[in-house]
């Protein structure tokens, strides 16, 4: 946490340009800039600023937005729900779909359904995310009018009409890579002797797949899933901008554009800490879930 905080302090102070000069605006004079530097907490030596920055990080004190003067934590809290509305279902569907298709691919290993699937998956992986968004928004929201082009509803039950297409795009963009990884996990597992024994004993294929192979690859899949959890919390910047989803991705983008330093700081520090915590919890959980690791 100290390392993250230090790194971010260095980045904010030496890489991005002076935030006070930007915030001061085009008509500011030297006296206004000096006053603003003091009011924004950029006065004093670099060491004093660093101590203040680190203390705020450790105390989880994010202060108020420079742009709206509202509480940074409240603003982040407001964005979390919409972001998760898109990323969480998209994430779960992508894994469900990837598991199904990976089993299908392995079942037809190196036969035409497998080849076709690999072709589709590789194609989808090569399509840029922006192109996918532009295409789907134009075709499914505008031309076919199955979904609203843009918008959001705070009501958790009404928002799904707006969320559906972004979820679908998120799923489409994220499931192909997962298919390939899971496919290789299954292909490796299926070579093992217990599978051969089960087949020899006449156990149904679906029982082998879903009762035995699935159970054994799940810890690997779980590790992969857990590492992606922090990204779910920060939302999808592009999707949120194109569909008007008031999530954290949109918030981050606008805060950067508006030089809203406290919000950018909170989001980046929180994101880094959540990532570290998730990796740690993931490592612990994997031991609990996979008894084989304990015996090793």
């Amino acid at each position: 946490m100290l390392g993250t905080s230090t790194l971010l302090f260095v980045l904010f102070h030496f890489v991005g340009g002076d935030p006070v000069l930007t915030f001061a605006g085009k008509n500011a004079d030297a006296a206004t800039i000096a006053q603003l530097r003091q009011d924004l907490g950029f006065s004093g030596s670099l060491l004093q600023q660093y101590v203040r920055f680190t203390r705020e990080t450790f105390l989880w004190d994010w202060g108020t937005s420079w742009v709206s003067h509202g509480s940074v934590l409240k603003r982040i809290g407001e964005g979390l729900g919409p972001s998760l509305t898109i990323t969480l279902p998209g994430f779960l569907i992508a894994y469900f779909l990837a598991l199904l298709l990976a089993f299908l691919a392995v079942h037809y290993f190196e036969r035409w359904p497998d080849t076709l699937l690999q072709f589709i998956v590789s194609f989808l992986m090569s399509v840029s995310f922006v192109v996918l968004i532009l295409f789907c928004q134009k075709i499914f929201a505008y031309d076919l009018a199955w979904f609203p082009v843009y918008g959001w509803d705070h009501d958790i039950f009404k928002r799904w009409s707006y969320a559906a297409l972004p979820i679908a795009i998120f799923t489409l963009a994220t499931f192909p890579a997962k298919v390939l990884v899971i496919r290789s996990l299954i292909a490796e597992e299926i070579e093992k002797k217990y599978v051969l024994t089960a087949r020899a004993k006449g156990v149904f294929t679906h029982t082998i797949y879903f009762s035995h192979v699935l159970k054994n690859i799940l810890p690997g899949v779980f590790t992969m899933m857990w590492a992606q959890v922090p990204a779910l919390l920060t939302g999808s910047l592009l999707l949120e901008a194109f569909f008007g989803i008031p999530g954290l991705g949109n918030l981050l983008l606008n805060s950067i554009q508006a030089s809203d330093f406290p919000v950018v700081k909170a989001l980046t520090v929180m994101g880094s800490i959540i990532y570290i915590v998730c990796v740690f919890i993931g490592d612990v959980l994997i031991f609990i879930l996979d008894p084989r690791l304990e015996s090793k």
Partner: protein
Amino acid sequence: MNNARCRKVSKWNIFAFADRLEIAFREQARNTEYTVKAPRLSSILMFPLLIFFGAACTPKNQDKEQTLFLHLREQLRSFDPVLAKDIYSQRMVLQIYEGLLHFNYLKRPVELEPLLADGMPQMSADGKTITIKIKHSIFFADDPCFSNGKGRELTAADFVYSWKRLADSKNKSESYWIFRDKIVGYDEWRKHLSEGKATYDTPIAGIRAPDKYTLVVELKERQYELLYLFTHAATTVVPHEAVEHYGEEFSEHPVGTGAFRLASWDKNSKITLVKNENYHDDFYPKEGAAGDASLGLLKNAGEKLPFAHKVVVHEISEEQPQWLLFNRGDLDLWQATKDYQPQILDGDHLAKSFAVRGIKMSLPVSTDVTYIGFNTENKFLKNKKIRQAMAMAYDQALLAKRFYNALVISAHGPIPPNVEGYRKNIKNKYQQYNLAEAKKYLSEAGYPGGKGLPPFVFEMASMHTTARQMAEFFKQQMAQLGIQVKLQTNTWPQFNEKLKTKKADIFDMAWNGDYPDAENFLQLFYSKNISPGPNSTNFSSPEFDKLFEEMKHTLSGAKRKDLIYKMEDLVMEEVPWIFNFHRVFVFVEQPWFYNFKYDTMIMDTFKYYRVDDKQRQKDKER
């Protein structure tokens, strides 16, 4: 055998599932208030999991009566007047809050009119005292911040409070410059407040409310442009009850005297305004500029404002959703972005495919100027001949064609059209592309063929592709002279830091007018404003300064115009900037949308807009 059976069963299951979903979908379409284009089976197979969210529906005929559907091209940052630093926030603030004055909606050049002031402000003979009468019976919108929830009457003391907020350094308002160095005691009060030696109860000598409806402003010296600033979003009036009641959330709970009040704000997505039932008497102008009547802009002359009961404003930063929503009729008005202009325009006319739909187009000129600035303190660039040579080697006609679809007005100086002092028919000889002459000037400067000159760094204000392409264009043009240019991309904060610390030698910029007065553009060459002030080229000329100071104290008229012309001639000759363009906006309106007229300076516009809901319904069905 087992495998084959499994395959057969699973295939049957998928199709049965899809069929059931299709039936459910069609059933849903029949039984609900939604219109659904029922998807084909193949489509369902493509997106089977979407169906779980019951999502393929488009709301039908939500309450659209008397509703405007508009958009912001950037996300709204704040509804607090003192925090509204960008034009989008200012525009939204001015739908809810009001100031002493505003601009007549139709007259051009723009003309000041009283809004909350009861008549135009009265100036003393020496121009240092301004007395403003406030209209009686103006009420703030109803809000829980007031006792019993009813909006109370506006008084002159509310202006004193609101302008103190602007000076309060805790509010970190960028707009503090509006009254800085102008009002007696204002800067001192700010200083004392930040030092804890003053409170909001401490009076400011130069802002007084001698009675409930009178406001007196004492100036350090005559300031003609101050009246324009009484229209600015930052000088609008807020009730102290709302600031105290909502505290740090005040920027999300605006309470004003304007035509609308905020109903909801889904941040970064949608803002909904509704009519303020307490809105005072305000009427559509009875007179306009020449040609307004033929454009149908006077059909509602004298009618009570606002026309709309509800305004939905989508915050859309991406271009495609803006375009799709407009094309579908879900936006009443759209400022077409550069990439979509070729689809809309046929030359400078609306394309036939849009005209037949009844769509209307207007091409207003922005009160701005784009330019390439030279740091006149640079060892080489302080040589006027080099700047003149570079200006002459820069082919602006080609630039306009390549990057602006030729939809710009060439700028010969800093003052844009619609501002006093603009001269339509003059030519700046350094703006005429003439490579041979440019080479001659460079030789006269002592650097024939660019020999002896170091490579100059061209600082880009953004990392946007277009900005890079335009910088590349400049580089190519200068290469013809033998001058080497290195391109440097920057984020806006990096760029800004370079400007404010005099580290940007050549840069591209635009200046959007804060008010429609030549002073706002000419101050960019005033030596007292050099970096970190707004004079980013650090241009310094005693002659210019003398003229500028004289102009500031001269009332609008022939003498002032003459001073403006002299200053403009001086900067045209000195070339601290290569003057580029005054930008032209492309607005398209739906056939059911009326009373649209644009000027960068006029922002309290929603109350004038009118829609014909029946026509909208009919056109959209068609």
